[in-house]
């Protein structure tokens, strides 16, 4: 393994842990990171400064770091690969649960975007990893998994990447709004959501999130709907400012 790939691997691990500790982009403290990666706080501080130089995080001494948009994007991509790989190792290769994490950690850095997409098709667009964490959405320019399947023949390069970072509505804070930009899952889920008014481009706001991975109450087109946690984790929005609508 050459040096530069070792460095980028290290960066990716940091971004991944930052995302894991705060998927909705809040401050993560140095000590939290140091505990999770089992690395001394001093080394963590050093690395965070380096990440700040690369514009992946905003670092404030003694407080910790927040992922920037670029950093969040990269963090989601590697997290997605990691969790997809875990699903694959667990469901397809039937590897024991206690071994999949380490293996996925090794593989995630070398998984190409085309392979990631193929894996997602093979696993039928899973929304959670075996440890029940939500798999982040892909960053391809699709509005739904159906569309990705329809355009199977096109390469990832032809499809292009999304510019904006999306948020799943389970990660949206109460009283925040978003524009529905991507719906994950098979066509049945999409159709049911469409019928209830959750169409691509619709403005949706989160009213209540029930505790313990409970359902999410949203307001859309003047009606209020409760969406089960699984369904809600499949609806992704582009954040919209409050005055926007």
């Amino acid at each position: 393994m050459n040096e530069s790939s070792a460095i980028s691997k290290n960066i990716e691990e940091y971004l991944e842990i930052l995302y894991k500790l705060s998927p909705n982009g809040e401050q993560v403290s140095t000590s939290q990171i140091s505990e999770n990666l089992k690395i001394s706080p001093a080394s963590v501080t050093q690395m965070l400064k380096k990440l700040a130089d690369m514009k992946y995080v905003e670092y404030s001494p003694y407080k910790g770091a927040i992922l920037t948009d670029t950093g969040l994007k990269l963090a989601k991509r590697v997290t997605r690969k990691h969790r997809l790989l875990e699903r694959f190792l667990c469901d397809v290769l039937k590897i024991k649960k206690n071994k999949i994490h380490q293996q996925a950690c090794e593989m995630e850095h070398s998984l190409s975007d085309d392979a990631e997409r193929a894996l997602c098709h093979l696993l039928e667009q899973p929304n959670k990893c075996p440890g029940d964490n939500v798999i982040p959405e892909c960053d391809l320019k699709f509005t739904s998994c159906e569309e990705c399947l329809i355009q199977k023949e096109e390469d990832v390069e032809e499809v292009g990447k999304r510019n904006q970072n999306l948020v799943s509505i389970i990660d949206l804070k109460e009283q925040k709004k978003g524009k529905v930009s991507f719906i994950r899952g098979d066509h049945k889920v999409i159709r049911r959501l469409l019928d209830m008014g959750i169409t691509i481009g619709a403005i949706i706001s989160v009213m209540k999130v029930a505790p313990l991975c409970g359902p999410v109450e949203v307001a859309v087109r003047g009606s209020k709907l409760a969406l089960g946690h699984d369904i809600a984790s499949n609806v992704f929005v582009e954040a919209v400012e409050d005055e926007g609508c």
Partner: protein
Amino acid sequence: MVETSGKGKGHKYRHRNRGKNRNLKHLTIALAGNANVGKSVIFNELTGSNQIVGNWPGKTIERAEGKLFFNGYDVDIIDLPGIYSFSTFSMEEIVSREYIAFEKPDVVINVVDAAVLERNLFFTMQLIELEVPIIVCINQIDIAKQKGIVIDTDKLQAALGVPVVATVAVRGEGLHELMDTVIDYVENRIETRKNEIRYGFEVEKRVDMLSRLMVSKNLDLKYPYRWIAIKLLENDPEIIKLVENSSKEVVQKSYEMAREIEEIHNEPSFSVIASERYSLANQITAGAQVQSEIKISFSERLDRLATDRVFGYVISAIVIGGLLLWTFVVGNFLSGLLTEAFGFFQPVDPQVSGTLSAIIWNGAVGGLVAGITLIIPFVIPFYIMLSAIENSGILTRVAFMMDTAMHKIGLHGKALIPLILGYGCNVPAIDSTRILETRRERLLAAFAITFAPCAARTIVILGLVAVFVNVWWALALYVIDLLVIFLLGRIALKVVPGESTGLIMEMHSFKLPTLSIIAKQTWVRTKSLIYLVLPIYIFGTAFIQALYVLGILEPISNALAPLTVWWLGLPVIAGVLLIFGAIRKEFILLMLVAFYGTNLALVLTPVQFIVLALVAILYLPCASTIAVLAREFGWKSAGMITAANFITAIVLGGIAFRLLSLIY
């Protein structure tokens, strides 16, 4: 699936009445619209007590049909199930669609929630596309007004091209105008336009080409061509199947066109069409509705509290606890009154000696009295309260809070209510699984309910174990029963085909339910239950007592000996007890007393008491429960659930006997 009650078949009803009222002109109206917009209220207001509730032929979907005499018309009114769209993913949608397209009611009244106009119009537009005579009824304008929404019905009428009437159905406001409009409509006094809903250019072009192709082929499909063309482009599986039978070419062409739309819009074609339909609904709404800012209403405040992460649970607990407490307290009181009243006329303890006719008489009366004193007093207060919390909108909040917990056995939060009710009596509990959306959920909930320790099972546990062994073992049996519900629930989740559909539930605004609605719902529900349960109680009890006296049960009991004596370690008589228990579980205790007198400790060992009680609570749902299962899910599912209960009881009973023998 099974066709359950003949009363459900509306056509008979219609023809019979048509004959009677030869001088009246006949009219059929269907009520269609989203769930919970007040369709049933309008239905009740219009038809009064003149209604029949049954199932759609071959489906376990409720069908309500009623009658109204208005201005020289004899009007049949059908209340269609509440749906959001005409796609074919639920039975309710298929039933509604086929009824409207095939039976062709004279007028379809589309009931619309004024507070949620845009979402409701999405469905209205699909109705208009079916090209049937439509009147839009904007209901609950009072609730909309509280939210600062005012709708201009003239503008809406102009935009949709169909008559629009505003109502507040719970107060009966506007219903007379609604019926006047219906009559004006059928007597051609209202100008309507042809369906003018037009999609974007790319979609419209292809809808047109497909319709023309079907016209040129002269296909006979019962639905309008334009509607079929749209459904084909939406890739609706049922419609594709339907058209495929007549012309493969049309279907092939529609696939190509759907793909073209997908390439142009970079979105699946069904999603393009839905989005365009919604943007039309949005435009129409924006043109006809004025929304003013208002301060947060009381109902809004209550809503926030009901889904609060702390108070939400408190309120849920109060609602569920209150429902149970109310049911048991009021039920016990009424039950006591009734028992006393009936005890005055006739002793009802089971009789095992005497003449045959005396025994049959004793059985029949005993069954009748048990039905009246045990079921009805509990069912009526429960239904009153259930109906109140259902109509007020509190139930959806409870379901919202309880969703996570119920997911462990593959159910939604709503399923908690039927499940808890199962602790009182399984029969209304299974009946109330109708509040759940899919058949699979209803089946899973019903399965779990059949294990719930109902009042009769409690009598057995208390009477056998708490009295003759000790209270701790009685409590242990309760705990074992709960574990069984949880474990079998999880197993059933894996075994029953189909995936758990995630929760998508509309959270309606709170409203005060009216007494007349509650009374009507309670009456309809109670009536259907009485018809089911009382005959089983009366004839079942008489029949089984007669069988016993004729000496038919003993040979069966002896044949069961390997199971009861060897495997379960019970006395031979257990066979007879369990056969009696199939009608009414508390019989197991009553018969034992009838045979051996009250000091049962002389007859059975502690181990036998516990094993007998364990087997008794699990081995079969009682006959009434099996009947209601069959009514709701068909005999096959009812049989499978019964078999699962039986196997569980025998396996656990055998294991318990062997383990307990080591202790005692």
